[in-house]
């Protein structure tokens, strides 16, 4: 009982260190309890139904158990986990043939230049219409927008997540903002 209480108070990093060392399912269950809600709700944002989101969250946790040793502690665990979840979801969406065809269609107008969009304009958008516009843009662009404006990650954190420099992050964010507003406006 006392050991249980101690485990609940472990930091994420210490907990992960112990899971990697022992592959203990009981310890992994503690990590699951801490993050299952976040992961499941992120999956709901990418899946077509709650059942699909459940399968997606299941696969993410299984892969997480296998890949946990690749977490080196260079960033906060939650930041690393967001990146892990988003990458899994983006790959999943890209594998979906129907959506893939749609993103190829969108890719045809990739080189079009869009009107510049600042954050004030972005925050004035209506949430239900924004959700639809996010479905229409490339999943990678959706990911960077969610990292920045939903999860409040800094540019430095996003740099670590995407493995690119600050200027590339800012450029991708700018393009993603412009594109989402473009699709938002086409929704009428």
């Amino acid at each position, binding site marked *: 009982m006392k050991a249980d209480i101690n485990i609940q108070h472990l930091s994420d990093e210490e907990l992960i260190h112990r899971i990697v060392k022992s*592959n203990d*399912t009981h310890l*992994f*269950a503690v990590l*699951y*309890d801490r993050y*299952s*809600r976040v992961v*499941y*709700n992120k999956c*709901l*944002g990418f899946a077509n139904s*709650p059942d699909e989101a*459940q399968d997606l*969250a*299941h696969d993410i*946790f*299984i892969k997480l*158990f*296998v890949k946990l040793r690749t977490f080196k502690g260079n960033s906060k665990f939650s930041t690393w986990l967001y990146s892990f979840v988003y990458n899994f979801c983006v790959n999943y969406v890209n594998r979906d043939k129907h959506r893939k065809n749609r993103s190829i269609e969108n890719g045809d107008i990739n080189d079009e230049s869009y009107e510049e969009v600042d954050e*004030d304009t*972005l*925050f*004035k*958008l*209506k*949430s*239900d219409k*924004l*959700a639809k516009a*996010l479905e229409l843009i490339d999943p990678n662009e959706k990911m960077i*927008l*969610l990292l920045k*404006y*939903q999860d409040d990650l800094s540019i430095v954190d996003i740099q670590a997540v995407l493995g690119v420099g600050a200027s590339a992050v800012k450029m991708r964010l700018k393009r993603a903002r412009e594109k989402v507003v473009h699709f938002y406006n086409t929704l009428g």
Partner: protein
Amino acid sequence: MENPFKKILHNEEVPEILREKVINDIALIKLSLDVADLFVVKCPSTIGEFIIDKKDKNKK
């Protein structure tokens, strides 16, 4: 100004069944890893040591 990205964030309860599925599958993976470790690492190492021990005794 309210951030619309926060409003589209889902806030649902995780289905209970998911925990059971995940933990059962993790237990199965752990078992597979342990069995693989036993036959690929521990058994060959024990047999190796046993043979070396026997050779040493024969030399003496």
